């Protein structure tokens, strides 16, 4: 089963600021806890794991991640991830495009993702996956917006995007495919920094 999500979240700061923050490894990491990079093959290819946890259910996916593109001009990136769960009975693949766009209010973070599940997870997870994907994206954007706001104050940010999310995303929030991709983004940027520092 596929979960297609396109969500945009108002960001209380100009696009440049948000884009810059999007490149702030620690900040991104803080917003999206969880995923782990186990191996860096080259600057575009990684191996990682991510745990999806919903209530009593937990699934751990091992997978390959490929950075398909990062475009500073359009402030957008495109990532691809494929993985199989530890029991070998489910598969997941994720395709994400994230970009920062300018708006009158400031900017918005646009996340466009397709998470597709195979096997057991698809058969039994349909009631779960949509909600999880949605919740995690909301949670990420919420946390991210709050950080952006904190940094880019005084401009008071609309709590709108956060409101639902903070209600629906429990502490130690579960991750879904998106989490993995954000984590990859984090690691990929770290790689960039590494180079520029050298």
């Amino acid at each position, binding site marked *: 089963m596929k979960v297609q999500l396109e969500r945009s979240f108002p960001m209380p700061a100009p696009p440049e600021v948000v884009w810059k923050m999007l490149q702030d490894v620690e900040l991104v990491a803080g917003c999206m806890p969880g995923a782990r990079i186990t191996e860096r093959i080259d600057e575009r290819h990684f191996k990682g794991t991510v745990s999806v946890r919903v*209530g*009593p259910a*937990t699934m751990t996916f091992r997978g390959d991640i490929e950075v398909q593109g990062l475009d500073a001009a359009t402030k957008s990136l495109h990532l691809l991830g494929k993985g199989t769960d530890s*029991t070998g009975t489910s598969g997941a693949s994720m395709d994400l495009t994230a970009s920062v766009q300018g708006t009158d209010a400031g900017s918005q973070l646009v996340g466009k993702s397709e998470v597709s599940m195979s096997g057991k997870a698809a058969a039994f997870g*349909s009631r779960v996956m949509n*909600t999880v994907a949605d919740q995690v994206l909301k949670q990420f954007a919420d946390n991210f917006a709050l950080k952006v706001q904190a940094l880019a104050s005084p401009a008071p940010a609309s709590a709108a995007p956060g409101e639902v999310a903070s*209600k*629906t995303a429990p502490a130690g929030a579960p991750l879904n495919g998106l989490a993995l991709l954000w984590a990859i983004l984090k690691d990929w940027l770290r790689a960039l920094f590494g180079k520029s520092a050298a």
Partner: protein
Amino acid sequence: MIPRPFEYHAPASLPDALSLLHRYGEEAKLLAGGHSLLPMMKLRFASPGHLIDLGKIGELKGIRQVGGEIHIGAMTTENELVWSKLLAEKVPLLVEGARLISDPQVRYKGTLGGDIAHGDPGNDHPALMLALDASFVLRSASGERVVPADGFFQGLYSTRMEANEVLTRIQIPVPSAGTGWCYAKLKRKTGDFATAAAACLLRTKGGRVEFARLALTNVAATPVKVRAAEQYLQGRPLDDGAIAEVARLAMSVCEPTEDQRGDVTYKTAMAGEMTQRALRTAASRAQ
């Protein structure tokens, strides 16, 4: 369909259960009726390191009236609810709801507390609890707190119950005499989750609604209390127009996900339809 290995604990008392829970923390899962958790474990979606079986703890059972409230032990089974004369007289909504849950064998094992604590929006009791203004008694090693059903359900499989807490008791204020009730549930077959369901309490006076409660099952990540509808009905005559408006309000708060039961449109429409039926039946039962 074999669970992963785990350790099993069957505490004889609540304090024992709490200390076990304290000891194993996130590693532990509470086992009530087991008809949600064990299938998940057999599918290896869930694999807790420790199972703490609440089945041997007598103090978690029983249905009694305490003042203006009905107190139900969390480990009281569905069939015990179905067969309770006290509930039939005081809280018939709960009996009607329990009768529509799963199948006979599951109702012998399934418990009110387990159904609530699991935090599955497909379960029936969460919406029933919202409609009944119930509150939940949560006990942990550090003490006891009482949390209202309203606000307890936070998200899919997520509630305000902490990992170190046990749901010990459900407290339901007895609806005042003459209150009409109905749980209207649409399901594909015996043993299935609701495609959509509506729980309703209704009291009228002089042809006008004096008190109304409405909550929905399985049409969002959590059970949904339809506040707008409850407020809208206040003081109104329950005519076709009002019923239609309440259905509209109910549908407007639905965020179902598509599955084999139907798409978003159908589930939303059914939430509206079940709402109308629950209202009409509740009204017909109100005196």
